[in-house]
């Protein structure tokens, strides 16, 4: 299936050079999990603090489950804060 994969803040450097606007389109197996993607892009798991699928929070307990769908956008941040 095809996904849009986004990395932000200090994780941006882990994206391939062809990425634009912090995003890259990728092909993955139909049963791929968020953790698979985190490992594929060599993101330290503790740095994958905020994981959103189509803008919706993905609980850490659900990141190893095959809950991604074709066309999804997955976006990941290290710990960030603001106000």
């Amino acid at each position, binding site marked *: 299936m095809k996904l849009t994969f986004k990395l932000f803040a200090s994780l941006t450097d882990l994206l391939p050079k062809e990425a634009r606007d912090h995003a890259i389109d990728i092909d993955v197996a139909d049963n791929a999990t968020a953790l698979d993607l985190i490992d594929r892009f060599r993101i330290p798991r503790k740095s994958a603090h905020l994981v959103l699928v189509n*803008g*919706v*929070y993905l609980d850490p307990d659900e990141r190893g489950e095959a809950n991604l769908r074709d066309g999804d956008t997955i*976006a990941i*941040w290290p710990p*960030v804060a*603001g106000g």
Partner: protein
Amino acid sequence: MAWTRKILRVNLTKGTCVAEPLNMDWATKYLGQRGLASKYLAEEIDPACDALSPANNLIMATGPLTGTMASTGGRYSVITKSPLTGAIACSNSGGFIGNEIKNAGWDMIIFEGKSPKPVYLYLENDNATLCSADEIWGKSVWETDDILHTKYQDPLLRIAAVGRAAEQGCLYSAVVNDKHRAAGRSGVGTVMASKNLKAVAVRGTKGVGNIRDPQAFIRATVEGKRVLAENAMTGEGLGALGTQALMNVINEVGAMPTRNMREVQFEGASKISGEAMLEPRESDGKANLTTNGACFGCTIACGRISTIDPQHYTIADKPQYAGNSGGLEYEAAWALGSNTGVDDLDALTYANFLCNEDGYDPISFGATVSAAMELFQIGALTTKDTGGLELKFGSAEALTKAAELVAIGEGFGKDLGLGSKRLCDKYGHPELSMTVKGQEFPAYDPRGIQGMGLAYATSNRGACHLRGYTVSSEILGVPVKTDPFATEGKPELVKAFQDATAAVDSAGLCVFTTFAWTLEDIAPQVAAACEGNWTAESMVEAGERIWNLERKFNIDAGLTAADDTLPERLLKDAAKTGPAKGKVNELGKMLPQYYQIRGWTVDGVPTAETLARLSV
């Protein structure tokens, strides 16, 4: 240095400066800064008074940990009645002046009355003098700062001042200290200018004292700093991208107020984000962000120091803006950017520089410009009204010209200085004002973050994110993750955030510590510094007491439960895109429960039992 136990009372009408003892009974109930100064204000003025009359007071207040070695212990607040909202105002600022006031030996400065002529207060330890402001009235904050530093030949003089915007009556004027930090919201600078008080210049050399248990205090603050350093948000995240790290987060979750809150996602968000501030420019190879910066005693260092692209149109003939200055925080970037539809990072940076230079709140300014842009779009405003200004969404030129006009209060800048509510009323479309109690919204659309809708509606100073930042839980998962679309449990969450934040503010600490600290981390620091039984529980109780005191002030000022609401756009017009698509804010499901757990009547009035329980 815990409490100095001294207040400086400045009667501007009489021209007197008198020292008096701090009311320690109140201090042990309201802690300091926001809470304690609110108590003084509530006791000393008629809440129904005209905020811009001499009957209003203005208080510059420190907390007991201001000036100590506690991390972020450099905060101070300006407390007064707001001319923008008619409610109590408390605007918090960092920088260095809070520490200086404390080191001069004062817990707070209370300004009463109105000076017959423009003056500034010069305060050097025990010596307080009201001086003629002839040489600085009519000057910007930056010019004022330079003139006074030159005059006194003391680089360590700390200065808080109002700019030309406040002198011209802009209702969301700030008190800017150390050139780039601001008590920004609710028009506290407008009140200061109304008193003919241009600036406060302070030098304090008394050092730290009055710590109840110095050894315990050192242990507690060192432990607190360890916790901040080891937390990824406060130890790394905020220093790297500052609050601007949230631009892409909030856009992704579909809670980015866009084009006067008609939309919830901005197509240009990445161009004005924290990440964009790190990208090298074509012109000089430098990034917008030069470095980060820290306020007094802070070990987080979220501040932004930026430059504008030297080839950008805004500074083509203005070399004074070519150097490093205070850069964009998330709130400014959102209000000046996505809410006006402008994705020009340098234009936003320039507008932000002007907000600092002449002292006006970039949130309220940006939101007011966005309301004007919508009025312009529907034809309720024309170029005849704006002096030829084409106020179109997305126009960087319109935004930066508007900023220049508000800074000096000329032309259509006068109308923009009214704020969104009065502007929309004047031009016949009150429904286009995105405000609560007359104050403009900050950067989180409550259709996508339900708890924030309740936090905005019930905030004691009008729409504000810093009175109960449930974004922390609903989006960032601190201290626990909650569902941003759920309404269940949100009244309890909002109350918990509101009470805890009131306590943190009143201690003299920065609320950003709470991404790592709970009150269990803060209470030992307060307890070691201050007399009294300060535990996490007693701090929560103090926070609840402060919240109810502020609420009572507002009710006495004439506000009612009818003011605890949101614009119809947020209650009836569903979000069009993103995860919140189809949702409105469900305030009606949360507000009655909130009143109930607050111990208030169904009309939102604290009951006699509640006030008695809290000894308000």
